[in-house]
């Protein structure tokens, strides 16, 4: 690489090394919208740009999944680096399934160097959920240890070994919550522990059951958690009752009430897709009213093109902060 290129890369980094834009939006008290990028099964950066372009105009952050559902796709670090390069605001998902602590800490440094400012720390779906179930599961860290380690790197400027970092990463740290699986009455305790471990924002699993979510938020508010973290509710459009059935039986941790599946089943085939979007918009409108909800995280798996419509119909359109 020529020297001038290197200088450009360095000054690029300077300009990007500022604070997380997602954090700025949330701390300004605006209702944030993030969405999930479909990580391509491809070696072509254009595929990332094309998918990100569907979301970029209406989102404050775009999550790149880390082998979601234990299926291999382009790595989250690479997707995030490409998005950062193109001016988007990426959220790096890091799962504990595939890498040990040495690899993860290295990736956290590398991603920061490539302009990534947001990290979502996850346990990760088990290898048995994916199409290579014969793989070794790693789980050297759990999600909370990962979260705390990322915080140590940022705040103490050291690796877990105690070795000093010359430039620590400046991360906005997040974690997931799933209020919809057992033990539902204790899930707020895990949220409390994640906040304790350093979570600044939370993105939840798909919410299709608003009453369960409301009960979760009530318990979280009773502990005063709503003032300590920015919580984004996971939502997404269902394409049909078959898609819903598949998701709730095959994707770990997804709970869809029968009423939602039946509503889609009763809808004529032509308008199922529209009905799925309508359900999603209705859920956004409902959760938006709940105290302590600071945004939504839209996971429109294989129908990313519906995201702008959902944002628009839920009345969440606003001028996005300029690059």
């Amino acid at each position, binding site marked *: 690489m020529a020297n001038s290129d290197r200088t450009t890369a360095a000054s690029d980094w300077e300009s990007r090394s500022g604070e997380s834009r997602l954090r700025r939006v949330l701390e300004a008290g605006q209702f944030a919208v993030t969405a999930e990028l479909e990580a391509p099964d491809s070696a072509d950066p254009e595929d990332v740009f094309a998918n990100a372009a569907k979301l970029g105009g209406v989102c404050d952050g775009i999550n790149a999944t880390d082998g979601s559902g234990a299926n291999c796709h382009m790595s989250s670090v690479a997707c995030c680096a490409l998005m950062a390069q193109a001016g988007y605001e990426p959220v790096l998902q890091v799962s504990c399934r595939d890498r040990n602590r040495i690899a993860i800490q290295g990736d956290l440094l590398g991603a920061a160097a490539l302009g990534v400012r947001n990290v979502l720390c996850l346990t990760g779906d088990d290898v048995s959920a994916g199409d290579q179930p014969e793989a070794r*599961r790693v789980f050297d860290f759990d999600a909370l240890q990962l979260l705390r380690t990322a915080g140590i790197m940022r705040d103490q400027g050291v690796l877990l070994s105690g070795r000093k970092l010359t430039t620590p990463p400046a991360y906005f740290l997040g974690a997931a919550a799933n209020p919809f*699986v057992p033990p539902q009455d204790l899930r707020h305790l895990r949220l409390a522990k994640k906040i304790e471990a350093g979570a600044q924002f939370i993105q939840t699993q798909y919410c299709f059951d608003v009453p369960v979510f409301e009960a979760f938020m009530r318990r979280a508010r009773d502990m005063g958690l709503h003032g300590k973290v920015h919580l984004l509710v996971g939502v997404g459009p269902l394409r049909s009752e078959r898609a819903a059935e598949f998701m709730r039986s095959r994707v770990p941790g997804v709970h869809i009430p029968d009423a939602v599946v039946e509503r889609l089943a009763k809808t004529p085939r032509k308008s199922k897709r529209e009905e799925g979007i309508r359900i999603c918009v209705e859920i956004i409108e409902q959760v938006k009213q709940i105290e302590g909800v600071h945004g939504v995280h839209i996971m429109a798996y294989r129908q990313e093109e519906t995201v702008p419509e959902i944002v628009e119909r839920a009345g969440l359109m606003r001028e996005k902060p300029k690059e």
Partner: protein
Amino acid sequence: MTSFAESKRMPGSEWLKDRPRLLEAVYRGSEAGLRLLYPVLRRVLPAGWTERVFVWSEEVSKGYLFNCQMCGQCILHSTGMTCPMNCPKNLRNGPCGGVRQNGNCEVIPDMPCVWVQAWRRDAQMERYGGEIQLLQRPVNRSLQNSSAWLNLLEGVDAQGPPGWSAIELE
């Protein structure tokens, strides 16, 4: 593939595991007993035998009761007297988001989620109840197959990784 020994569930151990208050009393008693016994064993037994005795008795007792995986850094009393290393993802800080609607494990569909059980049992515990909310540091994998009791008595890994302990001490 399933080396997870829930298949090896021992007769009677389930009954005992659902009595976490009894177990925490046994835990406290055995900790006190071991603290007395340790210096004696050290003096009486030939070099290396203390460890052998400890490892063997842990394998037998904790193996039977908790399906102990010999991680060498026992936190049973902080996890509702339920061994977290039985979780296929080795989670030490609570359940993942993959728990099934019937409360069973994402990975082993006919096994109850270790953490659902742990949380319920922790709530019943008198002395250590609530400790389940403590943040547990990353597992020291080099202690696998060593005696957690001995490691505790000898202060092995009392500090944890240097970067992590800097926070704990604050």
